[in-house]
């Protein structure tokens, strides 16, 4: 039980900390985050239907490039969902600056709850100790950073009109890279055969870099408008 508590802190703690530490809490953006979470749920459902419709069921864990490509394409539905959350949802007038953070946070939190809570509850509560759930918690951290940077890049692409021309290709490249991250990790996991600790390490590293890059891009775009 103690171990479950620890892993839950690692998995969900950063979301709460992020919310309370940044100005998000002051502007009460919880509603936005909740709405985003609902959008995430719908997106996940659509994705599931697509996966079930278009993908062959493979009996083995062998990495199949064509199937993986299809999976990556379906993964882009995520981007569509995020686009919807960023542009179509009506928010109480909070600045774009906070909007993308709220959206990214809601997105990452919904992802964590959906993908990690059940295994955590089932697995980490027992007596058996494994490092898996600690790693999974770290993965949730990386995922939070990735969602935030994707939301930041998305808001740059779709919401901000007067961006410096030179940065546009970089923004698009970064957004593309971030959006394909799930496919890349899945390739490393099953195609190259990395172990879980290595994959998580890679995820943490890339998400940290991407977060820094998108932060820089965001502040770079902020300047001319300010």
């Amino acid at each position, binding site marked *: 039980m103690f171990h479950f508590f620890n892993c839950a802190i690692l998995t969900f703690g950063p979301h709460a900390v992020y919310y309370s530490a940044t100005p998000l809490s002051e502007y009460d953006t919880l509603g936005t985050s909740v709405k985003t979470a609902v959008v995430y749920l719908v997106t996940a459902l659509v994705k599931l239907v697509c996966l079930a419709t278009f993908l062959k069921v493979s009996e083995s864990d062998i990495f199949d490039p064509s199937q993986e490509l299809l999976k990556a394409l379906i993964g882009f539905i995520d981007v569509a969902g995020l686009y919807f959350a960023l542009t179509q949802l009506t928010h109480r007038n909070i600045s774009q600056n906070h909007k993308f953070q709220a959206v990214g946070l809601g997105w990452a939190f919904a992802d964590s709850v959906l993908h990690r809570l059940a295994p955590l509850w089932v697995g980490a509560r027992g007596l058996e*100790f494994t490092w898996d759930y600690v790693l999974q918690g770290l993965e949730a951290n990386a995922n939070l950073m990735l969602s935030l940077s994707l939301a930041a890049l998305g808001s740059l692409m779709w919401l901000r009109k007067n961006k410096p021309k030179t940065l546009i290709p970089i923004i698009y490249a970064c957004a593309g890279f971030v959006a394909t991250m799930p496919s890349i990790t899945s390739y490393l996991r099953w195609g190259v055969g990395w172990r879980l600790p290595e994959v998580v390490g890679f995820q943490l590293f890339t998400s940290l870099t991407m977060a820094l890059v998108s932060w820089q891009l965001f502040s770079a775009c902020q300047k001319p408008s300010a």
Partner: protein
Amino acid sequence: MADPNTAATANRRRHVFDSSFYPVVALVFILIACVELCDASTVVDVYRLIQYDISGAPFGSRASSLNHHAGSSFSAPGSDLSRTVAILSLRELNETFIREYIDQGKPLGGLLLLLPQVFRSDNSQTVVDDSEYTDMKKQLTDLEQRLIHSTIQYPVYFAFEDEDLAKVLADIQRNDAAGQPATATTGGYKFIVTSTAPKKLASPTMTNIQGWLPGLKADGDSNQLPTIAIVASYDTFGAAPGLSVGSDSNGSGVVALLEIARLFSVLYSNPNTRGRYNLLFGLTSGGPYNYNGTQKWLRSFDQRLRESIDYAICLNSLSSGDNGLWLHVSKPPENAYVKQIFEGLSNVAEELGLKVGLKHKKINVSNSRVAWEHEQFSRLRVTAATLSGLSVAPNLLENTGGIADKREFVNEAAIVRSVKLVAESLARHIYGQEGKNINIFADNSSLAVSPSYIGSWLDLLSRTPRVAPFLSKDDAFIMALKKELADHVVEVNLQHDVIDGMFTFYDSTVGTLQIYQVASVTFDLLLLLVLGSYLITLFSFLVISTRGVDDLISLFRRPPSRKAKAA
């Protein structure tokens, strides 16, 4: 900046939302918590040491539930192992450990004994003439006797070595060697067997099976035909009821009886070769408990029937005798019937190149111990003898088909030879051909002893644990025996009886061992510390990067001011 008023209403709304939401969440969590999931890294079938009382005196393992860390080294003198499960493989078991923890009863959290795969009843490998295994068999037999006859306050379980367990054992041994025995503070492997306290079995039953091959009466002969009884006890007793298959004791006797019934049913089906003797076949239960079943079976006979029995031959542990068989009798060898049985057997034995010895052991009526099945007959003044591979009378609960008595150690050829010996001498007696060199059950004839029949029944018996109190009245095995006997002989019926009240047995003979690899409490605390500091760092970093250092500092002064604001 948002309007403070709207922020306040939003806050209030959130509180309302929270207060209705939390009970629901709590309810869901409680519901989920009720579903217990088994997620151990290794799950093993284990067999508990038998627990029984003789006249109220407790024997065997007196506990069944296990929940302790595992250890494997006991070198440190004076170490407290009352909260440790000792995991030991049979090969590593040493005399000191047995003396201290089994004979002297030093406290232990539990004991898990790993047996080599050869002792598995469904094991496919057949290694017989290996001196290593013979030694191990002897060691296991000795251990079994000591376990059965001592009172052990902690749970004792048997399991079979396999890859998973070998890995666990190696890990435990490595940790113990490194001086880090598993405890709550250091972590390690935890062994758990969930089980309720063992309960007494209410009136355990035993079932005797009997069948007849009626002889041919001469016309106008009103006298009852004499009867020859062939008897074997089929049940077993051993350290672990789930593992006591008793291939030799007394699987070999049961197989021999079935084969003799088959051979004579062929002879008796033809009126020309039907003998002038009735043949009575009896598969008796309760053998380990002073042949309690045999006693009850004989008591149920009426006087006329009992008097019509010329003699009874009991078959017991036929494959044990590497150098011949022994005929155990309780009447003096000068007795006419005894003489006749012995001479009949030894004549045939000579032709088969076998040796049969005669052993006379007087019955002590005041002693309740009955070492041989024929003694129950003798007590009721029916002439009887036991043909056995054992040369000396076994003690109580000795040679009753325990863990070590497996198919791999059974000499099938010896059983075939014994069957031929008994059948041939019986047939010569029935048809009055004594002393003549004829071969009724000659090899390659239609009446030849069938090694494949013997082999297949021996296989079945060696897969079926047969400890009488744990066999129900209509157990599949008893039904199979009944059906098989009914195929050869007539008037097959079952007789149910209650085992002698002197013996009491307890349930939970098998269990499931769950092995968890657990982290220590210290580790969990350390992880919590690391995580806490990580979150605090993250919090400070985010506050500084988004609002500046001053905000972070002012955050710690804020609570009173916020309260003032709310008021």
